[in-house]
């Protein structure tokens, strides 16, 4: 009897570890993008040792859990013509940062907005927002309106346009070695 239990136990462990390993492989594969074949989830299943349904369930689950924040086409804005990309950084008084961060996040032309630590004396800025635009003048006009709308005239800020992308790709969190 005890032998039977331990055999079951082993089978169960094997099944669990196969699927844990399969899920890790699935994340690795997904980080490189969905295959462009009629049944992409089946293709992923074949590469990971999971079933097509397990792949579909895992992706659905990860979306519900928030591990995947969006699932779709990842557009390269620079290729499209969004060549003016400005990171605008602000030195916001700590007690105002949350309110201002939330307000900026609602501005349509701001595509990302994050709080980060200051690194004094070199780096006094604690709020970062990104403006993607088709040209520099347009971005600067948008910035002017942002400053006027939110009374930011007296807030120290700096505009860091990017003039070259050396790399732009999705995050790879799972070891690929």
């Amino acid at each position, binding site marked *: 009897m005890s032998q039977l239990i331990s055999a079951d136990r082993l089978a169960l462990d094997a099944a669990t570890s196969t699927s844990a390993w399969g899920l890790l492989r699935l994340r690795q594969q997904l980080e490189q993008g969905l295959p462009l074949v009629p049944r992409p989830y089946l293709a992923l299943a074949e590469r990971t040792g999971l079933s097509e349904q397990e792949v*579909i369930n895992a992706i659905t689950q990860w979306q519900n859990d928030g591990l995947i924040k969006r699932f779709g086409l990842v557009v390269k804005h620079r290729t499209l013509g969004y060549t003016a990309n400005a990171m605008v950084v602000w030195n916001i008084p700590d007690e105002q940062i949350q309110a201002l961060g939330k307000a900026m996040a609602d501005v349509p032309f701001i595509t990302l907005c*994050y709080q980060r630590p200051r690194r004094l004396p070199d780096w006094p800025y604690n709020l970062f927002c990104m403006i993607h635009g088709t040209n520099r003048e347009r971005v600067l006009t948008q910035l002017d309106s942002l400053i006027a709308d939110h009374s930011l005239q007296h807030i120290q800020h700096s505009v860091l346009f990017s003039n070259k992308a050396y790399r732009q790709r999705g995050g790879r969190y799972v070891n690929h070695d």
Partner: protein
Amino acid sequence: MRLDQTDQQLINHFQRHLPVCERPYLEMSRQLGISEQEVIERLQSLQSHDVVGRVGPVFEHSQAGASLLAAVAAPEEQMDLVAARINRAPGVNHNYAREHTYNLWFVMTAPDYELLEEHLDELEQELKLPMLRLPMVEGYHIDLGFDIDWEALS
């Protein structure tokens, strides 16, 4: 690459909520009024022209693993060289030149923070340049894709 209206619709509709079912491209083709094969071919073409980096998930990095924005101040004439060294470090997924004393900005990812810090320490020692490490404290607006202003682009 010239994008026609169908390409634009494909981008407009599917930066989010790509169908997760047996035949996702078939599902998309029905919404766009084209064939499944055409959806696949258009996605292949968008990818090969680097308009679309990939089709797939954007992971929430606070849950997916460790990720950190860092910047270095590289001498102007060595920027390409330093950028190439940064790209050789493990887990670098974004690397941009920006107009500032800190002129190279990159995002590094790793399975966990301990490993991430190790990789950054190694890179810092190799580069011998001032480096800022700026982890996210709070995200007010995370990447959900954004509406492309096709008119401004045309």
